[in-house]
């Protein structure tokens, strides 16, 4: 490159930077995160996947919002129009749906990796909590989004879920009333779910993600070492930009391929329109709530709600609980791993079990 061009470019960026009186070196420093060697293995890069999918969701979600009408009389019809009439509407809707599912899957996978490699331990406890809150927000996204379709199953799914909320001890009736905007699922409910789905949750996730990433940057990524693997000192870390960033971009491209393939082969379907007068024979939530639904069938409404809440609470604050157990009872790392295996397998068993039930 001729020297003149390079300096002109530099000059241009300098002028842009001058427009914003901000410590740009700080940003450069933040971007120059030293990335541990093990992240050269792609399966350690899944933490970025949910974020990438979140961006996909925001873009496709905005496009869908152009056409979606959040009123009980119009909602189903507008989804029908998106699916059948709007050019590429079906594709956007399918990408949005698959991306949502992949986002939930990748959050779970990321959580597995972090848990079993012990990356949540001191001093990164708080980031686990933020991560878990992001999982909760992702599930809330899935639930509210599915309800917006306003087909029979999604309508009745919402009805069941708000009934579940009703069973929360002490404050349940307030929560369910707040969710529904009244004593029953109705006109207000759809509007509320819509506001949550496109306003409250995206904002929440944006800030949680920012906190999550800032904490990762501040603490640095946990360094992991495979036994017998010799890494020379100067190779222990590599640069975020451009080395790691290109890996992430590559993963992004592959994800886009995957989303496109899934959307083409299994495009998002549309069931019968919601009918508050007719209860379908089989009511089911989305798959990620199967475990809770199975618990409900195995126990009672109250017990299952309290149990799910307790499990979620323990999981969310596990880093603190674990260290307390370690201090108090000398709990070994091995036991933590077994608890993790047991809990996750339990989740899988309940999920599969529910899928077989009518």
């Amino acid at each position, binding site marked *: 490159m001729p020297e003149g061009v390079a300096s002109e470019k530099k000059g241009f960026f300098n002028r842009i930077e001058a427009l914003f009186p901000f410590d740009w070196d700080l940003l450069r420093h933040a971007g120059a995160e030293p990335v541990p060697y093990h992240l050269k293995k792609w399966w350690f890069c899944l933490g970025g996947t949910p974020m990438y999918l979140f961006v996909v969701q925001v873009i496709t979600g905005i496009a869908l919002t152009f056409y979606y009408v959040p009123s009980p009389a119009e909602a189903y019809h507008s989804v029908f129009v998106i699916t059948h009439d709007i050019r590429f509407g079906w594709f956007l809707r399918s990408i949005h749906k698959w991306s949502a599912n992949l986002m939930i*899957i990748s959050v*779970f*996978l990321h959580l*597995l*990796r972090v848990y*079993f*490699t*012990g990356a949540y331990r001191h001093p990164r406890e708080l980031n686990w909590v933020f991560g878990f809150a992001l999982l909760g927000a992702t599930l809330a996204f899935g639930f509210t989004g599915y309800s917006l379709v306003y087909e029979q199953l999604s309508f009745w799914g919402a009805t069941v879920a708000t009934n579940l909320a009703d069973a929360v001890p002490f404050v349940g009736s307030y929560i369910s009333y707040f969710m529904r905007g009244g004593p029953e699922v109705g006109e207000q409910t759809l509007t509320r779910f819509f506001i949550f789905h496109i306003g409250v949750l995206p904002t929440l996730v944006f800030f949680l993600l920012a906190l999550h990433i800032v904490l990762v940057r501040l603490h640095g990524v946990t360094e*992991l*070492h*495979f*036994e017998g693997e010799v890494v020379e000192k100067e190779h222990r870390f590599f640069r975020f930009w451009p080395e790691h960033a290109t890996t992430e971009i590559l993963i992004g491209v592959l994800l886009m391929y995957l989303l496109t393939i899934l959307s083409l082969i299994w495009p998002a*379907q549309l*069931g019968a*329109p919601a*009918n508050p*007068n*007719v209860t379908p*024979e*089989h009511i*089911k939530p989305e*798959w990620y709530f*199967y475990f809770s639904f199975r618990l409900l069938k195995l126990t009672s409404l109250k017990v299952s709600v309290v149990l799910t809440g307790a499990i979620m609470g323990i999981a969310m604050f596990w880093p603190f609980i674990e260290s307390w157990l370690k201090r108090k009872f000398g709990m070994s*790392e*091995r036991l933590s*791993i077994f608890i993790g*295996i047991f809990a*996750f*397998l339990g989740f*899988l068993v309940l*999920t*599969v079990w529910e*899928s*077989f039930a009518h």
Partner: protein
Amino acid sequence: MSLTTKRIIVASLSFFFLAALLVVAFQESKRLRVEEREEPVITAANRGCVECHSKDSPALVMEWERSGHAQYGVGCVDCHAAESTDPDAWQHEGVWVSPLVTPKDCAQCHAREYEEFSKSHHAKAGQILASLDNVLAEKVAGMPGNNADAVNGCWQCHGTIVKFMRDKDGNILKTGKENKPVIDPTTWPNSGMGRMNPDGSQGSCHACHSRHAFEAKLSRSPENCGKCHMGPDHPQIEIYNESKHGIAFYANRDIMALDKQGEWVLGRDYSAAPTCATCHISSYMTPQGATVENSHDVGERISWTLRPAISTKLNLVIYEDGYKEDYPDTRAAPKVGEEIERTEKVVENETLVSKKVKGKVAEVITWEERRKKMKGACLNCHNDTYVDNFYKQFDDLVTLYNEKFAKPSTKMINDLIADGVLSKNAPFEHPVQWTYWELWHHEGRRARHGASMMGPDYTHWHGMYEVSKHYYMKFLPEVVEAAATKGIAMKQKYERIVGQLLAQDEHIWMKGLSAKEAEELRKMYQSRYNQ
């Protein structure tokens, strides 16, 4: 624990996760398929039929496949199988079958519905075959050797006697390699409500439950009834469409739960509007919260008969053998336990004959009780006062029609017959007979049906207006004209009768309005139309 072990754990759990997701996805897609379209259950007995007919009549098989029957493995032979001794049976591909599926066939599974239906007015719809309607179609509109008007018209709603082509010895003609009996083509195909079948049963379930998909939404839709309940003589569907009920239905069809499997209860499964089925046969919630069972006896909730020249309230006599007979309130109802003789119409040798049957009365249901059943449906949306006042308005209209027009005109026709002016054997000889016929059979019914189902325009302009106009301007002059054919003395007698009638209070308007009334009328037009 080494990082490699941890990696194996994460990899294994991820693998299990993926496997679990695939299982869930597989179950989910199976469930979706079930919801979209249940797979038909093709039993061994039906496999052969389905294989051939999928090629010969594919749409018919597709219709069956999407039916509830197909989901339960109820297939072709379950309904079409016949005994080798049945007159309409033949051996088709080794199985004795009949094209005719009768209520008795349906009763194999739907016994309660069969019991209710077979005692109802619907099942007896074919007994109109010996009525004036039929004279009009077969004689007036027909010609010797061609009764196509009756075949294509009357019988397609009322049903016919299904007959066979026979040789001179009376044996049923057979055709083809399989010796298929030849059905008289004027009597089949026929899906009339009161079809009289070779197995002795009366009626056709298919009339409402169209084959081969047998959709609930079809039977529950008003259009289904409108195939027959329409036109100048009984425009129920037009009246319904005009009424508030009909308007609400068409605006809210999508929330009527018409497709619901099983019970379809007003006040529980839907609320937007009543259909014909809702008020006449379907289940509804009572104020106490209990559900009233639906009934395939369509006349159960009817308290007036609006069909004859003069309307009467109807009590219902039920015999111990289940036979039901309407008793007009003008006829003393028998006591429970009393043994009485009744007339039943049955088919013998492919002809409809009357038979005297003795039976013990098991129950007498009064017209008030029948009306209470109907009101139960109304009360799902309206209060007592509203419903009672509606019935007051309706009753008054029927009484008005009865007293002012139906009774005097019927008396005059009967007098003309008694005086030998008209002949009972020539019901459509004189213009006055046609006018009288339309007065009650067309216009009078329109007025009464209009009031019964809240159709204002049918009550007045298509109903009472026509009744009045034709009564004064056609019927009464034609009475005198008919009498004149028997000489001047007869003419003068009927001029006197008509004159006396018109002198009565309700007819005095013909002589003109009072000066005050005429002035009010003039002022009204002036202010309304600036004329």
